[in-house]
């Protein structure tokens, strides 16, 4: 008998295997991330002290934009050959399908971020390793927010007009609180300051955001898939 978590694992492994075979989404996402980092370097002089202070915020813009490329593929990869039908027909819960895909996306987006991070460190001359454990935690929490909202909206927009445009249009306003929190925390961490006093509220807010939106997505995913 397949338990819920085994179902999640089967879906996650399937998505990762399919993606790693072609690497289309991760390559595009990584290339996009590096291009944006470059463009930001022209817009905000990386040698200025002020830029270093805001650079943590810039980093999350890069992650959000590049991440969308991966998230868009999430349910879009089920479109050719009508694979989504087979997934819905299979005796797994919509929640397991959603969670498996979300976790696969999570791994892929984190991978892109972890490659972009050193490049960012080099371009902006910031010591991102100084507070790495805390930075990594913010990365984990913020990326989950991006992933969970992006995955459920990927399901929502999979077969509507202008899908590639609709996904970011819908996702970013919803993500404002989580992105803001991640930006505030990261801005401090990359300049070497650990999370302290005031900033803990941001951390709690992102955790709350993650929990709430994961729960809402799990409840509503069946409605999105079957109607």
């Amino acid at each position, binding site marked *: 008998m397949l338990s819920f978590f085994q179902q999640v694992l089967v879906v996650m492994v399937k998505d990762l295997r399919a993606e790693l075979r072609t690497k289309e989404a991760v390559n595009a996402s990584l290339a996009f991330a590096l291009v944006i980092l470059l463009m930001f370097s022209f817009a905000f002089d990386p040698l200025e002290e002020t830029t270093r202070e805001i650079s943590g915020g810039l980093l999350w813009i890069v992650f959000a934009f590049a991440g969308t490329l991966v998230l868009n593929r999430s349910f879009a990869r089920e479109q050719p050959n009508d694979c989504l039908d087979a997934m819905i027909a299979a005796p797994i819960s919509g929640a397991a399908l959603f969670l498996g895909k979300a976790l696969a996306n999570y791994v892929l987006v984190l991978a892109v971020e972890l490659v972009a991070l050193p490049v960012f460190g080099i371009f902006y001359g910031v010591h991102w390793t100084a507070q790495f454990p805390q930075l990594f935690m913010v990365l984990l929490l913020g990326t989950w927010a991006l992933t969970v909202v992006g995955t459920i909206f990927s399901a*929502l927009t999979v077969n509507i007009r202008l899908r590639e445009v609709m996904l970011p249009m819908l996702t970013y306003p919803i993500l404002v609180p989580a992105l803001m929190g991640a930006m505030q925390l990261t801005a401090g961490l990359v300049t070497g300051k650990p999370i302290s006093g005031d900033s803990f509220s941001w951390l709690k807010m992102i955790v709350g955001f993650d929990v709430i939106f994961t729960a809402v997505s799990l409840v509503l995913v069946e409605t999105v898939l079957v109607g």
Partner: protein
Amino acid sequence: MRDKLLFALGLAAMALLARNTLAVAGYPNEANQGAIFKIIFFHVPVAMAAMFCAAVSLIGSVMFLLTRNFKYDALAVSVTEVGLAFLAANLVTGSIWGRVIWGIWWTWDARLTSALVCWLLYAGYLMLRHAIEEPTQRATFAAVFSIFAFIDVPIVIFSIKWWRTQHPQPVFWGGGSIPAEWYITAVLNLLAMVLLGIVLTVTRLRQEEAQREIDSLRRTAHAF
């Protein structure tokens, strides 16, 4: 809703607005900000009216998902459009206020910024609807998004408020007391906005139902 009732509500709204505008014009100017402070009589009520609209939109969306009755979907889209208009009024009055007091068209005031994000959220709702042809799918997906949007609203307001306390900016209206008479006028203006909102929503609702009927007739005509 009967036409007569609708007209009556509209007239009542107009009468209230007229009465309030005259009353507000008669009040003395505020000490620090001058005449422009009176914009608060419109700036705040439209924001509260928009919040009512968001709540009704949520109710409409949830009821649609539970009953699959299209009248709830029509309600959700109508009230969201009206709410967007109210929010836009809030943004514009806020912008004008800031321009007069501090000379800049946009201040990153917590409330104004939250209003902007909420405006983008519900504009997304309308964009989503435009992107889906089939009525049942459109209603279902819009309802799901509306639920997400509504849950996000308090989190947005809280996080932007927290962001602003960390980077303080000038605030329009810190508090302080206002005369009781002013308070009544403000509440009456809120009532006027709510009545106006009802009239606009019902009008839009009728239009939406008519559109649905036309669509299905068109489908029937083209089907074979």
